[in-house]
């Protein structure tokens, strides 16, 4: 079933001024229920503009955004409701914290939905627990936390709205390698546990390769590719032309295959690489 659909969406910034820029040019995308989709593109490719359309923060200059087949920009109300159905977590979300305690900050979204206080409480605790915030942290001021913890609080704030679609804009940006891994793992777990649709925006193929199942590649405001990891990564030359690349490990494997090792082509993470190498060695190599 299609959850979100962009139908011929174009978006222009500063219409009617000499600074007019076309950020999206007739984009058609369908996001299916339960998708784990990564949106990838170079800086200025229109990634952020596209996802801000999905929860009605931006209104398309042309075209429509459909949520379960209904235009989300039909009225003020539908646009407002779309914000709760499509949870959007911006880049560096820790800079948006404002409440006096972690608990209150996480409850901002659910409270805006007009939920009862017991329902809000339940959701806040569930979200906090999910992102790994301990009970005693809920009473602390968010400004006393470390950078990584702040980000978890902000993510929990969006998750607590329990949206049908969760969109994360560069969730791992500015974190150290361990922080990156744990945030990406967290998103993977969220998807596994809830089965809801998740969209990750990133410019790093490495990050995406570990979690995503489908990839949408944007280039200069248009959809360049949309398909499974295998489909997209098999077009590495085209990707390189757009200033993108396939994961390093995949490149190493394709180089190895040029020397006649008969290795699998769809190796995207170090973990998969390890398995494949072990399988290969076990079988007894036949390198020339």
């Amino acid at each position, binding site marked *: 079933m299609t959850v979100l659909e962009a139908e011929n969406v174009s978006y222009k910034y500063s219409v009617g001024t000499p600074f007019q820029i076309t950020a999206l040019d007739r984009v058609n995308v369908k996001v299916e229920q339960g998708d784990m989709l990564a949106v990838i593109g170079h800086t200025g490719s229109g990634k952020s503009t596209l996802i*801000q359309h999905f*929860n009605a*923060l931006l209104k398309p200059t042309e075209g429509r955004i459909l949520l379960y087949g209904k235009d989300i920009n039909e009225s003020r109300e539908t646009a*407002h409701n779309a*914000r*709760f159905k499509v*949870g*959007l*977590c*911006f880049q560096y*979300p820790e*800079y*948006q*914290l*404002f409440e006096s305690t972690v608990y209150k900050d996480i409850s*901002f*979204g659910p409270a*805006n*939905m007009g939920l009862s206080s017991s329902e809000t409480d339940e959701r806040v605790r569930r979200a906090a627990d999910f992102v790994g915030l301990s009970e005693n942290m809920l009473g602390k001021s968010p*400004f006393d936390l470390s950078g990584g913890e702040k980000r978890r609080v902000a993510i929990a*704030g*969006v998750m607590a*709205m329990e949206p049908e679609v969760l969109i994360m804009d560069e969730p791992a940006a500015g974190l150290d390698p361990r922080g990156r891994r744990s945030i990406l793992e967290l998103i993977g777990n969220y998807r596994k546990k809830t089965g809801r649709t998740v969209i990750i925006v990133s410019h790093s193929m490495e990050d995406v390769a570990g979690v995503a199942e489908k990839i949408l590649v944007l280039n200069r405001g248009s959809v360049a590719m949309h398909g499974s990891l295998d489909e997209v990564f098999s077009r590495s030359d085209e990707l390189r032309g757009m200033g993108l690349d396939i994961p390093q490990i995949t490149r190493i494997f394709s180089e190895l295959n040029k020397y006649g090792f008969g290795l699998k082509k769809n190796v995207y993470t170090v973990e998969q690489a390890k398995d494949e190498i072990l399988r290969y060695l076990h079988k007894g190599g036949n390198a020339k």
Partner: protein
Amino acid sequence: MIKDITIGQYFPGNSFIHRLDPRAKLIVTFAALVEIFLCKNFLSLALIFIFSVFSILFSKISFKVVLKGLKMIYFLIFFTALLQIFYNEKGNILFEWRKIKITDGGVYTAIFMAVRIISLIFISSLLTYTTSPTTLTDGIERLLSPLKKIKIPVDTLAMMMTIALRFIPTLIEEIDKIMNAQKARGADLDTGGVLKRAKALIPIFIPLFVNSFRRAYELAFAMECRCYNGSNHRTRMKIMKFTWRDIAAFIFIGMMLAAIILLNHFFGAVI
């Protein structure tokens, strides 16, 4: 929407007005503003209004931009005019109904005030439209430098101003981002009464303040690391020089002053 504010913005260009020395531009602007207040009748006011319009044409900045800048104060102009019409009781009565009295003196004053405010905005915004913030502060610093003799830290103040101006666009961008983020969490910023709207600003201003302090610390550290010291007899990359343009501007504004005084003297005063 916040990005649409044009007052205080700088539009690069190469016109006569752009190329005036910032000190000359400051003095001429100040003189023109004083002259606006010297005007006593419609003739002198018309002169200064035409001057302001021609200055804009001369600067090659589109009128659309300037009018957009006026948008924010339409209300002020309207309100001032309204007050004059209803409360000024000079001259002949044009219309009377119970306690409301409208006189021709009131209407004239209303028009006078409106034109005066518009001219003020035209001239003062032209200064920032045609001068980059750094050049402007440089100019102010140079004009105020005699005050150093009485131990006023002019250069430090100028640096503070430069920093403040430099961060306006950054802050606007940041407000936009935070607003979007809170809207994404369902914050309702556009509906409700005054109290509700004021409350809705809390989730925007707290992060804004927190981030500004953080940025201020970072900037201060970066300046310390480069051993910044406000009053170290800095030399300039661009040395300011008066040219024939500046002299022409001075002569012109001086002639305007004379003309306004003469017009005030020979024709009756409205105000």
